[in-house]
């Protein structure tokens, strides 16, 4: 489904990605881990088209989409759940979802707002556990609820691939458990790509794990293989356990 070959990206002198190659099959659930500054967010930004790569190619379901813009990728079934909540604050939860639902129908519709749209939105809200919250403005929801709404909005575009950027960041253990179960319960036809620091979540969700370090892939395999890989332990697991919950890297300016 996703085929990345020799992807490069540098900001001035700093090389963020130094030849990353990655293949994710359809329906597979891939986790990407690595210390801060390993290039995870840069990779995500390139995959979603918000950043143009300086080298290498990206293929989505066989089609070369290198350098395509965000909305072109979105229309090809690539959805993203952001690390920081990116919602339409004054709009109600139902409207947030409705906007994603009707994205395919296009914006240039000048009639009234169709009635069935509300029903479809409510169904999705129910799916993510926000049954009664349809009429509440997004800004009025709790942090956990906003993450659930974030997921509902991502699912509303009926994606083929879902990129999850640290879905459990800043969540309480109870909220983390609920969101992880939600993600786990997603249809197996949906390909998942997850960036996550919390190793329990990684091992719970991932079929395979890719480990990034200083812009390069240093390991790629099943959770068991990666857990046993000496290089990974020395470079990554050794360091991370010591520094739990380090602040996420800032998007380069």
């Amino acid at each position, binding site marked *: 489904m996703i085929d990345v070959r020799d992807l490069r990206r540098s900001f001035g002198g700093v090389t963020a990605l130094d030849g990353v190659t990655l293949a994710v099959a359809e329906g597979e659930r891939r986790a990407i881990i690595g210390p801060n500054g390993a290039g995870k967010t840069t990779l995500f930004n390139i995959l979603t088209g918000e950043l143009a790569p300086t080298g290498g190619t990206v293929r989505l379901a066989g089609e070369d989409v290198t350098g395509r813009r965000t909305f072109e990728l979105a229309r090809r079934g690539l959805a993203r759940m952001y690390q920081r909540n*990116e919602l339409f*604050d*004054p709009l109600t939860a139902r409207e947030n979802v409705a906007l994603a639902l009707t994205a395919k129908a296009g914006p240039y519709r000048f009639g009234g707002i169709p009635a069935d749209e509300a029903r479809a939105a409510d169904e999705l809200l129910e799916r993510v556990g926000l049954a009664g919250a349809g009429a509440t403005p997004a800004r009025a929801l709790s942090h956990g609820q906003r993450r659930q709404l974030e997921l509902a909005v991502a699912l509303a575009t009926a994606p083929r691939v879902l990129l999850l950027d640290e879905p459990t960041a800043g969540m309480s253990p109870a909220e983390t458990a609920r969101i992880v179960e939600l993600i786990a319960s997603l249809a197996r036809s949906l390909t998942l790509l997850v960036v996550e620091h919390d190793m329990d979540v990684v091992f719970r969700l991932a079929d395979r794990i890719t480990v990034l370090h200083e812009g390069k892939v240093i390991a790629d395999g099943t959770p068991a293989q990666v857990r046993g890989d000496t290089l990974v332990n020395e470079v990554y697991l050794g360091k991370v356990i010591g520094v739990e919950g380090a602040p996420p890297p800032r*998007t380069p*300016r």
Partner: protein
Amino acid sequence: MSGSTTTNELAKHRGYTYRLTRRQFLVASSAAALAACGPAATPSGAPATTSAAATAGKPLKLGILLPFTKVYAELGNSMKRSADLYIKSKGGKFANRTVPAPIYEDEANDPQVGLQKTQKFIDQDQVDVMLGIVATPIAYAIRNVVDSAKLIFIETNAGGNALTRTTTDCKPACKSKYIFRSSFSSWQISNPIGEYLASKKGVKEAFTFVSDYGFGTESQADFTAGLTKGGGKVTGTLKAPLGNNDFLPFVTQLKAQPTKDIYSFFSGTDAIGYIKAWNQLGLSAAGYKMNGAGFLTEQDVLKEVKEQAVGAITSLFWAVTLDNPENKAFTDLYQKEYNLLPDVFAVQQWDGMRAVDEALQKLGGDTSDKDRFIRALEDTSFKSPRGDFAFDKDTHNPIQDMYIREVKVVGGQAVNVISDKIARVQDPGK
């Protein structure tokens, strides 16, 4: 510098809604309607229609539209002083009509504003006579409004030829039975000097450099016609945009072409910028001679450039040093009242007021019959500070003498000294 702003601060505020309930729309639109009718509710002074009976004794309402803001504000103030002084000098009465303080409005150098204020004079104030307007574009803009409202209007500055001529389908403007002019037409201050330089001063070749707008282009064409008639030839032309910020590039080009006699039309800041650049690049020393229409070296410019303009030859129908009894009396009266020297704009406004006054004397103050009022104005002629003044019967443009002036330093002050006179100059327009 933060990256591209994703959400926009403008709309992120509480109580910010973008849909409209029926009630709000109703409240707002009726509020807008009522707010606008505010002025209507206030009763205005004069009765709606003037009675056909003699209007003797009824106050004569004057509406004067002048610039009190933007770039020509100084001219507006000077003309207001002159208008007020004239009324005061006549003890506030023209013939048997008392003349209350005129209604002044600001043309703000914007044709839209000029139109709105003229409409106010017509609908709201219902003035008997309108005077004023400095900028030609505004005079052209209100021409149709004044003509269709049959409002007698004395143009006291704007010199665009079209205002007092017949033009093809009245573009950009054309003469009107109700419009008179007490100032000049650009032809009058540009053509005679062309003919004079060629025939009397032996100028065989001239180069023209003017301000790139309606007035400047007209003056360039009229000068060229005059020079050619006198046997001379214009070797080239150059234009600088109105309100040009840097004259060096243009004056450098002047110095790079051979023709020594330069004719220019600039006024206000452009005239100042041009004369300073002329001086900085030493054109006089290099044998170039500056000629132009009177406004190039009028008081508002001379007080800033002073002796830098020495030697400039210009043509205008007046100069502060013009020695005739009327000019002496006017200059003394003006200086006594405001301790300022009057400028040509003050003279134009003064003569405009005088024309109305003279016409009222003939009519015994009865302005009820517009056509008789117009004929009275057409027959008006008097001794003005500029010399003999009379209206051309069919174009309503003034017939007046033109003076050739040269800037000299007299008593430590740079002044336009009169060196010659061209009598009874009449605009060729029909």
